[in-house]
């Protein structure tokens, strides 16, 4: 058993690229080993900004190839063919034998299993594996042809204490590593992973990313504990910072607390995004003027701490300057400046967008039953913060800054919240707006965006969605579902198209409404899938006549999904299938005119009449409960038709000699199925 060790030394590779490379290159090497039937016990990969390290342990030093039998020419073939076969496979005459198979008698030979030297194999496998990895972002440098994540300096490759020698572009592999030491650089021969890891440790370099992470978290926790602060840290930032350092150290720093007066989002963004610091909060979740910095060395003279504190102070004083300036710039006055900001080329400016949004207030306030004026004001000024220096500096604070400005300028709280919330939800885990005015503005903005881009045929493709229309659609649907809104989106979409027309925006798409609704429905199916709704139930929503009332479809799916294996649903599905099977067999080849309603005069048996009455009862129930439907009750209602249906099928022969009676019975069954499909398309539900 032997160990394979590879170290790729380069200039600093960005965190995301590191993670991808250390995982994928390892996988590629493993696959290439498996392809050649070379087994191993374990594999690991590590990364530092300048190093990618791969270790595969428990490899054999040599392996014996499997016995192989090869087929030669037919025995009738000329001698030259046989000679060629022997020569090209380096056989001896005596190794060749004849064997009869289906197509005749052929020459065969057994090739002696070769002994494969793994070291030699690795000389091919390793460069091949490196070459087949493709970086998400790559570059060239100097005069070299190699395309790599960042300039690659050297490759150390060792197997069983020996160098695996190969050439990879301009680089020749060796068994030497280089460490930039404090005084001078250290170059060392690598025997194996253990000695390599030891060597790095002596220089205080922690190779294992997990170990680095633990060190950092432990240090941060300790500091929070002694200072009585909350110890929760932004996960993504931890993950990133871990891959930016090789000698992790955590330093507590602070800034002047006068900056705590400016909106804390600004402070947090400055610290996290721009400087990769961890802001600290007290136990009551209040931001403090302390923060943590993960440095790449031990701060012997305290320079690192003072330096970073100066940097944050400079940045915050800049932010404060802008805050003081921007907060007094009237949001209403700023609307005019939106004429200079494009929403999208053919869809006008952001000013145009806010004007359309404002006009949406009246239909939406009707549906949401909330104050129209507030929606109008919030819609008009919700984009005004985009003209501020602060949002220019921190684009991720759009909306949030608008909220603060509105508060400073004495706008109603509903309005300022709506400005802050209207971009929500921003991701899968992000919250949706909950207050009525916020909901309204957020929905209006999203509908306007979807309709606009679909209208000019800028639609997402399977791989590209440059305007994040998927996220917009999912956001819209989540707002509806999570706030229990009975919304007719179709009307709003049509209204949106009119608003664009009023502004003389030319739509090249003539079926915008249909396409937007279809797009929403497809996204809606994804949401259902994530909520673990069964696939057949999701398919069953396609033909429902609920007119894109997504809340109602959502509730139906949930209730069916919940009850699918319970008696109540089983009964519904059994009677539905029984009816639809008969209908299917009877009308599949023949052309029947299926009327809307059966002719009661043609009923010959009580069971027919009883079933008909039952169906009418269900229909009445549906029309009476169009606004507020209690889906538990609906299920009970549908299942309650079981005795009537069973009696009908047990005692009535559909296939009557009298064609009129037969037709009438089929119409009755059809009516039954249609009525049930009102709820969801039960024909799509798999049997129980």
């Amino acid at each position: 058993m032997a160990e394979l060790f590879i170290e790729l030394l380069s200039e600093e590779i960005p965190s995301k690229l590191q993670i991808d490379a250390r995982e994928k290159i390892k996988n590629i090497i493993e696959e290439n080993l498996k392809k050649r039937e070379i087994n191993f016990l374990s594999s690991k990969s590590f990364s530092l900004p300048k190093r990618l390290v791969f270790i595969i342990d428990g490899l054999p030093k040599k392996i014996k190839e499997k016995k192989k039998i090869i087929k030669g020419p037919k025995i009738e073939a000329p001698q030259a063919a046989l000679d060629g076969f022997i020569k090209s496979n380096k056989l001896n005459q005596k190794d060749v034998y004849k064997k009869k198979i289906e197509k005749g008698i052929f020459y065969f030979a057994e090739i002696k299993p070769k002994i494969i030297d793994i070291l030699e194999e690795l000389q091919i496998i390793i460069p091949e594996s490196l070459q087949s990895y493709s970086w998400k972002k790559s570059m060239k440098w100097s005069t070299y042809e190699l395309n790599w994540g960042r300039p690659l300096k050297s490759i150390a490759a060792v197997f069983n204490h020996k160098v695996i020698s190969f050439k990879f572009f301009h680089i020749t592999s060796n068994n030497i590593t280089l460490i930039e030491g404090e005084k001078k650089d250290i170059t060392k021969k690598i025997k194996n992973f253990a000695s390599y890891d030891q060597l790095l440790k002596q220089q205080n370099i922690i190779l294992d990313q997990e170990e680095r992470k633990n060190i950092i978290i432990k240090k941060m926790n300790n500091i929070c504990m002694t200072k009585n602060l909350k110890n929760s840290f932004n996960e993504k930032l931890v993950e990133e910072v871990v891959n930016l350092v090789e000698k992790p150290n955590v330093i507590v720093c602070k800034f002047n607390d006068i900056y705590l007066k400016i909106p804390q989002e600004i402070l947090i963004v400055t610290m996290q995004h721009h400087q990769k610091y961890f802001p600290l909060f007290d136990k009551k979740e209040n931001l403090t003027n302390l923060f943590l910095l993960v440095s790449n060395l031990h701060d012997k003279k305290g320079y690192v701490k003072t330096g970073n504190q100066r940097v944050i102070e400079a940045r915050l004083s800049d932010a404060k300057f802008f805050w003081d300036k921007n907060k007094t710039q009237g949001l209403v006055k700023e609307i005019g400046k939106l004429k200079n900001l494009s929403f999208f080329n053919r869809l006008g400016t952001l000013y145009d967008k806010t004007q359309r949004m404002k006009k949406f207030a009246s239909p939406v306030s009707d549906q949401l039953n909330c104050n129209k004026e507030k929606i109008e004001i919030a819609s008009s000024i919700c984009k005004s913060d985009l003209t501020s220096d602060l949002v220019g500096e921190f684009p991720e604070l759009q909306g949030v800054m608008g909220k603060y400005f509105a508060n400073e300028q004495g706008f109603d709280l509903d309005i300022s919240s709506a400005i802050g919330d209207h971009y929500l939800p921003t991701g899968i885990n992000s919250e949706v707006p909950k207050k009525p005015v916020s909901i309204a503005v957020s929905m209006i903005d999203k509908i306007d965006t979807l309709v606009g881009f679909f209208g000019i045929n800028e639609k997402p493709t399977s791989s590209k969605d440059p305007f994040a229309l998927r996220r917009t659609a999912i956001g819209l649907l989540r707002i509806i579902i999570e706030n229990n809104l009975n919304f007719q989106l179709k009307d709003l979409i049509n209204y949106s198209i009119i608003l664009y027309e009023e502004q003389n925006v030319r739509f090249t798409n003539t079926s915008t409404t249909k396409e937007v609704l279809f797009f929403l429905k497809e996204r809606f199916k994804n949401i259902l899938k994530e909520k673990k709704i069964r696939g057949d139930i999701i398919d069953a929503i396609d033909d429902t006549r609920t007119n894109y009332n997504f809340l109602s479809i959502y509730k139906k799916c949930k209730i069916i999904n919940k009850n699918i294996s319970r008696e109540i649903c089983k009964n519904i599905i059994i009677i539905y299938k029984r009816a639809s099977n008969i209908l299917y067999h009877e009308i599949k080849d023949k052309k029947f005119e299926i009327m809307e309603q059966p002719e009661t005069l043609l009923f010959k048996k009580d069971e027919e009449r009883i079933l008909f009455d039952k169906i009418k009862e269900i229909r009445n129930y549906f029309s009476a409960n169009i606004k507020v439907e209690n889906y538990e009750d609906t299920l009970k209602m549908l299942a309650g038709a079981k005795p009537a249906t069973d009696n009908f099928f047990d005692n009535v022969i559909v296939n009557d000699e009298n064609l009129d009676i037969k037709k009438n019975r089929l119409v009755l069954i059809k009516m039954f199925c249609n009525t049930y499909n009102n709820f969801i398309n039960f024909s799509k539900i798999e049997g129980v």
Partner: protein
Amino acid sequence: MPKKKSLKKKKGKPTAVNFQETILNLQKFWGNYGCVILQPYDIEVGAGTFHPATTLRSLGPKPWMAAYVQPSRRPTDGRYGKNPNRLQHYYQFQVIIKPSPDNIKKVFLKSLSTIGINHQEHDIRFVEDDWESPTLGAAGRGWEVWCDGMEITQFTYFQQMAGIECKPISVELTYGLERICMFTQEKNNVFDLIWNNGGIKYKDVFYQAEKEYSAYNFEFANTEYLLKNFEFAELECKSLLEKKLSLPAYDQCLKASHIFNLLDARGVIGVAQRTEYISKIRELAKGSGKIWLESQK
């Protein structure tokens, strides 16, 4: 004995390098390394990269090493001298080496020690920052170099310039001189920087200029005249390109670019126009790059 203590402290911290020495030291360092030391280009530019010694010279097969200080003008960054960190005119020290040497990172770190930054004592970080300039049709891969959290240098391997793939690849180092000196001199306000040992400060040299140019950039630049000038520069550039004069043509491209920046600061460029202007300048840059490249074969 408090006196002794303070003396000891002083010994640990060498006196900071003043602004003009910082430039001189970098020139000396890179001059010794083998770079051609050039003087600033005599046309207004937005960054050291725009100097033809970088843009045009990074194209073509011939090796090239140069270093120079370049005043850079960013009209929109003017703050009438009121902001401690922002200026509409500042200095960059630019190094361009083609092809990029294998040990460039090491040489760069060494250069820092000549301007008062010992990289062993500070947290030097190479933070991903891929550079792109839509006006130059240029793109590169690289980092911003952080020193204790402060961005002090932009470190870029050019991949494309003037729309043309670079071959071989040049490396560009752009030192932000004011920032570096604010760091080494421990100043929180750029105007407090020590310019020389004769007591002159940055404020003495540039404060009035910042005030006056901010007023010019934001309030008084004659936009009608600028718009016309943009057109002249564009026309001139195109006619020079026809005559295969890459360097004079490129000068016109630079002029157009600076006029665009001024118009931008005056707030007279709408969004749609903005992209149009940028693409116009890019075309001029591409044209100049193409003609230059032909001359290099």
